[in-house]
């Protein structure tokens, strides 16, 4: 068996089917998208090659940069919320009462589809019958905010369900990472008289570093390309106040019939995500890997 597995031809043969599939459904479309971006195309009929026109237009398109700014804000918010997730995970991994139940509670949003979450929060944000405004009205606020109709509020009103939606996912990752740290290390620290705070910051955090790096990449790249909840809840409105890069791309391609420009936007989104990943890896690079044994 060992001999077979070291045979290069066999390795290639085993890898080939999934590689082909991956190429066909991921990499070829990426290349094609880049190519469509070089054309003027309404999605039907023939394409006209226009070179880099679409990409040049993108650089000066204020609506695109506005949506990019919104995506960046979302990335920032989800980056910050990671701290919250980490704290919760640390508390849950400690020996507290009801940790099991709490873990399940945090995980439930993960089980819902984005559309279901969107519908749920649409009801909560309803300007007259929604939970928030009903509470506000009952304590005597006469003009409660119109969460999704107010251009300066809508973005943050959308961030809250998004952060809520992913809480379970990141808490689970951190929780697993924390459980992976050998109990003996903490015990030794405790014998040396370390406080809970010291254990958390001096032992758990450094040992969790790789996991944290991964979650930072996941959350920031995920935020940059985020689409579904925003599409269902506001469709980028009112008047682009909650437009993000992915929804902008969608609107260009499927609403304005400008598939060339939409593709260019999609390709730009890919580049931005790649650059973001590269930057984060640079910033968070670790020289040493931890090994427990």
């Amino acid at each position, binding site marked *: 068996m060992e001999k077979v597995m070291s045979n*290069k031809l066999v390795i290639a043969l085993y890898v080939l089917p999934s*590689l*082909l599939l991956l*190429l*066909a459904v991921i*990499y*070829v479309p990426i*290349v*094609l998208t880049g190519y469509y971006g070089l054309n003027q195309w*309404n*999605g*039907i*009929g023939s394409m006209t090659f226009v070179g880099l026109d679409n990409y040049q237009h993108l650089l000066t398109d204020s609506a695109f940069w506005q949506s990019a700014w919104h995506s960046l804000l979302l990335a920032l918010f989800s980056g910050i919320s990671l701290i919250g997730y980490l704290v919760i995970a640390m508390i849950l991994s400690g020996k507290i009462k009801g940790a099991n139940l709490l873990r399940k509670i945090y995980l439930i949003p993960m089980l819902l589809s984005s559309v279901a979450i969107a519908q749920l929060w*649409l009801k909560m*944000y*309803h*300007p*007259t019958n929604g939970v928030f405004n009903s509470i506000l009205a009952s304590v005597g606020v006469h003009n409660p905010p*119109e*969460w*999704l*109709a*107010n*251009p300066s509020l*809508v973005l943050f009103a959308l961030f809250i369900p998004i952060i809520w939606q992913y809480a379970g996912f990141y808490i689970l990752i951190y929780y697993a990472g924390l459980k992976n740290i050998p109990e003996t290390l903490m015990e030794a620290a405790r014998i040396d008289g370390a406080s809970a705070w010291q254990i958390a910051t001096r032992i758990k955090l450094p040992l969790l570093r790789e996991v944290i790096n991964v979650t930072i990449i996941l959350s920031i790249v995920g935020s940059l390309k985020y689409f579904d909840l925003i599409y269902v809840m*506001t*469709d980028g*409105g*009112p*008047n*682009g106040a909650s437009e993000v890069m992915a929804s902008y791309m969608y*609107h260009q391609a*499927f*609403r*304005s*019939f*400008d*598939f060339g420009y939409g593709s260019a936007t999609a390709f730009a989104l890919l580049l931005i995500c790649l650059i973001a990943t590269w930057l984060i890896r640079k910033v968070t690079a670790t020289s040493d*890997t931890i090994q427990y044994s």
Partner: protein
Amino acid sequence: MSNEYGLRKRSHQKWFAGLTLLLSFMLVLSGCGAGKDGQGGSSGDGGKVTLKMMHLWPEGSSAQQSKLVTQIIDQYQKDHPNVVIQQEVLENEQYKNKLKVLSASNELPDIGITWAAGFMEPYVKGGLFTPMDDLLQGSKLKDKFVPGTTEAYALNGKTYALPIELNITPIYYNKAIFQKYNLKVPTTFDEFKQVVKTLTDHGVAPIALGNKDRWTGSLWYMYLADRIAGNETLKKAIDGSGSFDDPGLIQAASEVQTLVDMNAFNKGFNGLSNDEGKSEFMNNKAAMYLMATWELPNFTTNPAIPQAFKDQIGFFKFPMVAGGKGNENSWVGGPGVGLFVSENSKVKEEAKAFVEYFVVKWGEQSVTQAGVIPATKVDTSKEKLPKLYVDLLNGLNQASSITLFADVQMKPNAAQVHLNMIQALFGKAVTPQQFADQHKAAIEKGN
């Protein structure tokens, strides 16, 4: 962990070469795939013909229409045993998206639904719809359509789809609420504003509006533009021969903001969908609702809606504005959706025959069974129809002009600008002048 990388590096270049090769291979393959078009219909064994039909009347949200379609199809299959018709039903927004995706891959269903004018244009220019003029001149359909309806589906002298709906847009109102506050149906815009004021003074939302969908707000702007500047001015501004800079059109935009300032619309309208906005009206919370006659089944035939509610719904024409150029009998509306046959269908003749049959049957039955106004002429004397329906049909007969919905008239890109600007106007994010400027720029761009 770290040593593994060293191992891989050696064959790195070879792999890369292989990858490039594969990539180009796949490109060639996908190129081949696009060459032949996979078409829906097939006239295979035993002379059986399968027709694929895609439409947008899901059982949930358009119960009456959905029932009627199935009924017509069943009857047709009984009369033509060699034909099988497969339905694919999607909700409005999904329908539009799927249509675009299918067009890009040249796989349109044999029969489908389209909207008129600007919406249809890219499809027609792409050679995807087949002309229907022979059906129009045929014995079954000649002179059957209400004048002006098929024209919206014509391009370069050919008609590419047959309309099945005709819509005008009245203001529905809740008689019970009007009675409670001693309100009379307004005939002028000043009276209308007075009604709005009385209702807000009593804490009732005057108008139900869900402007997340944006075309809903567009109706208000269109009517004000029509009443103040006249339908010709609006039409010319939209097709580019006139301008949105017209003082009447700018005044219309500022009247919209006046209504917003008066709290005429329910709270948070810019964040609510049309369905959410509508529910304010359906729950007796808002007094008025401006919507096309496709809502008629909900006020007449839909069994899911209590009769008591249906009985208290009336309608009035959009009021006249003092000094304005428009008159009361000028409507916003136009043909709703129409049926097209795919140019690349392998069973084009059969598909066309079915469309002809469908249009005739729909015209006969949609009135009584679905409560929609068909684009074909209706003989009201024969049928026993709900009063609201007859009144609206009479309104339609007196129509001096019908202005097609702006977002349907405009080309896709300009339509998006228009819709976004509508939301901005209602949200007071732009001034009427900026509203006009953005429209001008979008229409000059010409796509």
